[in-house]
């Protein structure tokens, strides 16, 4: 059964984050845009009558309801013994949160081990001019190089590879080395020399199946397809369909799902064009403050995606207000 954490964010016209790539003394202000979109339907938890449920918090001792302001974050140092950590303390631990992604090293793209790749964001130009952006993208793409950097985004440090493809920059977050196991960590047996005849036989089988490129049809989510078909059948038959009024708080686009390609293309045109379209009124990345950002304007799906990125517990049952409050607390 797909759980709520399988949800991928819906495309959003607004950047997830804004920052500045620097290489040498050159700065390239960029917006981080979602590169993925939801491909599957999400299952919601509802009451026996079909009303959507919300997650709420209670004291463990006497089951008294708790509001967000009654909840703090604690780190368990010993069993049942916690050190409370305040949000502003976590914030002060990252003063270099200057939004700079300082590329100090360029490496061959193909040298980056795929085990390290975590998730991708498309980067779109956020400055007044697209020139530095296009220059960096061209040079990296022509030379097959990726820039490597670490930076802090929303109270978490990221290792990132900046890669250019089709004139477009993207950031691929990478796992840190202690997050990826080695053959020794797992304790795999020492390699044994294979028999030449076995290798030859397998090579022949490979030859028969080798193509030039990946066929996306092989990556279709068949489970989601089956669930969608069941839902469509039930809607047609009017069976088990419950009408509900999405609370006014849910979705600011009237539930309209944006086309991610359109959103990205608009954003790629550059800050001036994007500003016009999104009416964000924000100029370069430097002035776009995450803390001053109007979270209330984001749709519930966008808020959920952020909550997921921030590892906010209990996010799947939160209302929009709860998500806003929780994101403010942890961003």
């Amino acid at each position, binding site marked *: 059964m797909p759980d709520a954490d399988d949800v991928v964010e819906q495309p959003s016209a607004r950047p997830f984050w804004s920052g500045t790539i620097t290489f040498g003394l050159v700065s390239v202000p960029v917006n981080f845009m979602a590169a993925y979109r939801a491909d599957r339907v999400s299952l919601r938890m*509802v009451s026996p009558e079909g009303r959507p*449920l919300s997650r709420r918090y209670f004291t463990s001792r006497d089951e008294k309801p708790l509001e967000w302001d009654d909840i703090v*974050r604690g780190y368990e140092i010993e069993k049942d013994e916690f050190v409370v950590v305040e949000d502003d303390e976590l914030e002060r631990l990252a003063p270099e949160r200057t939004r700079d992604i300082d590329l100090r090293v360029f490496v061959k793209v193909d040298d980056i081990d795929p085990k390290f790749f975590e998730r991708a964001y498309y980067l779109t*130009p956020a400055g007044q001019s697209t020139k530095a952006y296009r220059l960096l993208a061209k040079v990296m793409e022509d030379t097959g190089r990726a820039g490597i950097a670490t930076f802090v985004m929303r109270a978490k440090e990221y290792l990132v590879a900046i890669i250019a493809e089709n004139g477009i920059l993207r950031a691929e977050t990478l796992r840190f080395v202690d997050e990826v196991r080695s053959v020794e960590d*797992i304790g795999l*047996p020492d*390699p044994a020399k294979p028999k030449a005849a076995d290798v030859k036989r397998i090579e022949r089988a490979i030859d028969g199946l080798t193509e030039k490129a990946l066929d996306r049809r092989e990556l279709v989510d068949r489970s989601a397809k089956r669930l969608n078909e069941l839902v469509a059948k039930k809607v047609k038959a009017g069976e088990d369909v419950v009408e509900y009024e999405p609370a006014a708080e849910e979705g600011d686009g009237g539930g309209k799902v944006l086309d991610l390609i359109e959103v990205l293309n608009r954003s790629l045109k550059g800050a001036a064009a994007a500003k016009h379209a999104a009416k964000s009124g924000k100029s370069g990345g430097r002035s776009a403050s995450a803390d001053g950002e109007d979270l209330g304007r984001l749709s519930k799906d966008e808020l959920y995606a952020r909550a997921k990125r921030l590892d906010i517990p209990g996010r799947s049952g939160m209302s929009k207000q709860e998500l806003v409050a929780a994101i403010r607390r942890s961003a």
Partner: protein
Amino acid sequence: MARAIWKGRITFGDVDVPVKLYSAVQSQGVQFRLLDAKRHEPIKQHMVDPESGKVVEYADIRRAVDTGAGELVLVDAEELAELEPAPSREIEVTRFVPHNEISHLWYDRPYFLGPDDSDSGYFALAEALRRKKVDGVARWVMRKKEYAGALRADGEYLVLVTLRHAGEVTPASELTPPGGRDLDRREVEMAKRLVAAMEDELDLAAYKDEYRDRVLELVEAKAAGKVVKFPKAPAKKTEASLADALERSIAAARKRRKSA
């Protein structure tokens, strides 16, 4: 020795290699618990019907799909069970593509494969992938979920990296890159020289999650009742024209390289 999370068989043509799957990632994130602010005790969560304000017990919770049109379609547990894929031990490779042909955008979660029973087929497969310079595209069902993945040689071993689903990824080739006036040839040359000056072998071990270390230090200091020191913000950089910035950066990168 890590414990295998699943056992299966890689199959294609007349090839059938039994393997064990091991997670290749171990999360190192700092885990916080939510506490009751007054008593500093962990809190409980319940699902509540916002209309009645009553807690709905787990056994009474139903599942529904939001159609996005103000409708919820209820789906019961038996229906969901019927949608589950048939269990299988087969990791079926449907095609091979040139090594590194699959864009990084698709990669999700890596698993190491280890030999199950006899090693010979396992190491022969890794060797064949290396010699042919190809990666396999595979599908399998693991714990009631369907996966697609890339089968790759990793040194003398095999890894299987799960791939995102077709509709999830927007390939760069489908997007329109930002336009503008032609780039200045001199600036392109300078930028190339700068990238070349900053080129190095990739050493992922050189990068540490320093923020995570600082969070743990903070926790330890607080637990010991010590005064916590916070780092200071670095100075801001000055802006310069593109050509000027490139020129000065190349000089700086060369100098750094010489002194290194």
